[in-house]
C-alpha cells in the first residue's frame, strides 16, 4: 500500500479509536466513580456500613474484572444490540468497553478514596457535615489526584480493549491493523498502527501525569 492509500485509513482509524475510547471513558467514570465510593462507604466501619450492598457490589465488580474482555465483548452482543440497536461500529463498542472498564475503575477509585485520612472525615462530621457533604468536600477533593491518575490508567486500558473490539465488529486502529496489517500481511501498515497506538498512549499518559502534578501542587502533605 502506498502512503496515500494508507493515510485515510489511519486517519479514520485514529478518529474512531479516540471516539470509542473517550466516550467509553466518560461512561466509565460516570459509572465507576459512584461504585468505588459506595464500596468504601458501605464497607465494614464505613459511614454507610451495609454488608449486603457491599458484598453484592464487590461480587459484581469481581466478576466484571475476572472475565477476559474478548469474552465479555461477545457475551454482551445481545445487550449491546438492545441498547444501541446494533453491535457493529464505534458507537456500539462504547457499551462493552464501558462495561468492561467500570469494575476496573471502580477498584481504583475505591483504593484512592480509602487512602483519605479518616481524621478529615471525623473533622467534617464534628462540624455537622452530612455524608453527601463528606463525599463532596472531603473524599473527592482529597482523593482527586489519585482518581485522575486512575482515569489515565483506565483510558490506556480502554485503548487496549478498543483494539480487541476492532476484531469483533468495531472500528478504529485495531480493526484496521487486523484487516490490512494482519489479513493482508502488510507489515509496514501494521508497524505504522503500532507506532500510532504508542504515540496515543504516551500522549494520554503525559496529559494525565501533568494533571496529577497540577493537582498535587496544592501542598499535598498529610495533615
Amino acid at each position, binding site marked *: 500500500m502506498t502512503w496515500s492509500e494508507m493515510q485515510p485509513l489511519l486517519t479514520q482509524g485514529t478518529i474512531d479509536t479516540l471516539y470509542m475510547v473517550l466516550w467509553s471513558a466518560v461512561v466509565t467514570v460516570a459509572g465507576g466513580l459512584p461504585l468505588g465510593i459506595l464500596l468504601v462507604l458501605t464497607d465494614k466501619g464505613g*459511614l454507610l456500613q451495609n454488608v449486603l450492598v457491599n458484598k453484592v457490589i464487590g461480587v459484581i465488580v469481581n466478576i466484571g474484572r475476572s472475565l477476559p474482555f474478548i469474552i465479555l465483548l461477545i457475551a454482551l452482543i445481545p445487550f449491546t444490540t438492545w441498547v444501541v440497536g446494533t453491535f457493529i461500529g464505534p458507537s456500539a463498542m462504547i457499551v462493552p468497553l464501558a462495561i468492561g472498564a467500570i469494575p476496573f475503575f471502580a477498584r481504583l477509585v475505591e483504593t484512592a478514596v480509602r487512602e483519605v485520612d479518616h*481524621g478529615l472525615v*471525623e473533622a*467534617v462530621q464534628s*462540624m455537622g457535615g*452530612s455524608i453527601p457533604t463528606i463525599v463532596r468536600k472531603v473524599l473527592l477533593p482529597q482523593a482527586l489526584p489519585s482518581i485522575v491518575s486512575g482515569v489515565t490508567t483506565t483510558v490506556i486500558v480502554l485503548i487496549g480493549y478498543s483494539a480487541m473490539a476492532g476484531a469483533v465488529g468495531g472500528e478504529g486502529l485495531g480493526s484496521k491493523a487486523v484487516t490490512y496489517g494482519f489479513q493482508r500481511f502488510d507489515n509496514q501498515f501494521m508497524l505504522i498502527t503500532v507506532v500510532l497506538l504508542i504515540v496515543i498512549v504516551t500522549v494520554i499518559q503525559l496529559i494525565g501525569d501533568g494533571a496529577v502534578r497540577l493537582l498535587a501542587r496544592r501542598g*499535598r*502533605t498529610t*495533615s
Partner: protein
Amino acid sequence: MITTTGLTKVYQSRGREVTALDGVDLHVREGEVYGVIGQSGAGKSSLIRCVNLLERPTAGTVTVAGQDLTALAGRGRRAGKELREARSRIGMVFQHFNLLASRTVQGNIELPLEILGVSGQARTRKALELLDLVGLADKAKSYPGQLSGGQKQRVGIARALAGEPKVLLSDEATSALDPETTRSILQLLRDLNQELGLTVLLITHEMDVVKTICDSAALMRNGRVVESGTVTGLLATPGSELAHELFPVGGTASGPDRTVVDVTFHGEAAARPVISQLSRTYNIDISILGAAMDTVGGNQIGRMRIELPGRFEENVVPIGFLREQGLQAEVVDGEPAGPAGIPAQTPAPHSKEVAK
C-alpha cells in the same frame, strides 16, 4: 455545660468485648477549662468522641448546653439532621489538625461555614476575622502544607470556632507540638476561654497542660474517672493522686532523726510567708527538699517538701502550726517511694514531671 451520666462504650473486636468507657460521670461547668488526663488506653479519646457522638455510647447520656445529644442519635449509624445541627455548635480540634490539604487556610475555615449554609461574602469575612483572632491574618492564602505545626493548630482552632460554638472539645491538641508551641496554643485556648466565655473540654496525657490552663481536672484509668474536681479542690484533698502528679515533689531525708513533711499550699494561706514564720516562731532550721509551685489565677498553689530536724514526735507542734495556718501537712515516712496511697502502677510521680 457538658454532663455525662453513666457513659459506657463497649467495642466489639473480633468477638471480644473491650470496655473503653465504664460508667463515666462528668460535669463540666459553663466557662471553665476542664482537663481529662490519663495514659493512652485509659478511654480519654472515646470519652471526648462520645461527647459529640462521633462515637455512639453503648449506654448513658450526654447533655451539652442543656440538650440531650444521645436522644438525638437515632438508631442507625447515620447522624440525623438534629444531631448534625447540635454538632455544628460544638467546636473540635484534633491532635493531627485534620486540615484539608487541598484547600487554603481560608478555605479550611470556610468549610464549616459552607456546611452551615453561610453565603460566600459572609464566609470570607468570618474566616478572615477568625484568622485575625488566632494571629494568622497573613496566612489566608497559604496551604496547610506550608505551615508549621503550631500554625496548623491555630487554623484548626479558628475552624472549630467558625460556627460560634459555646463548647470546644480538644483532642490532644498540643500532643504533636513542641513545648514552646504547646505553651502558645494553650495560651490561645485560655484567651479564647476568657474572651469568648468558651467552655473547653480537653483531653491530654500531659500534666503540664492541666497545670497550665485547667480550672478542673479528671483522672481516667481503665475507662473510669478515678478522681475529679477543681484543681484547687484536688489540692485540698489529702492523698489526691492528681494533686501529687500535678505538683510532684521529691527528695528524701538527709539523715536519721529528720522529719519530712509535704506541705500543700492553696487558698489564702499560700499568700503568707508561712515557712519563715514557722522557722522564726519555733527557732528551727528548715530545709526545702523539693517544691512545685505555680500561680494559677493569681493564687499561689502547689506543694513543697520540707525537712525539719528531729523525729516526728519532736515536731508535732510545728506541724500543728502549719495546719493551723490552713495548710495541709502530711508527714512522709521513711519510704523513698513517696506519699502513701499511690498505687504502684503510677510510675514514680516524683521523677516524671519534675524533669520537665
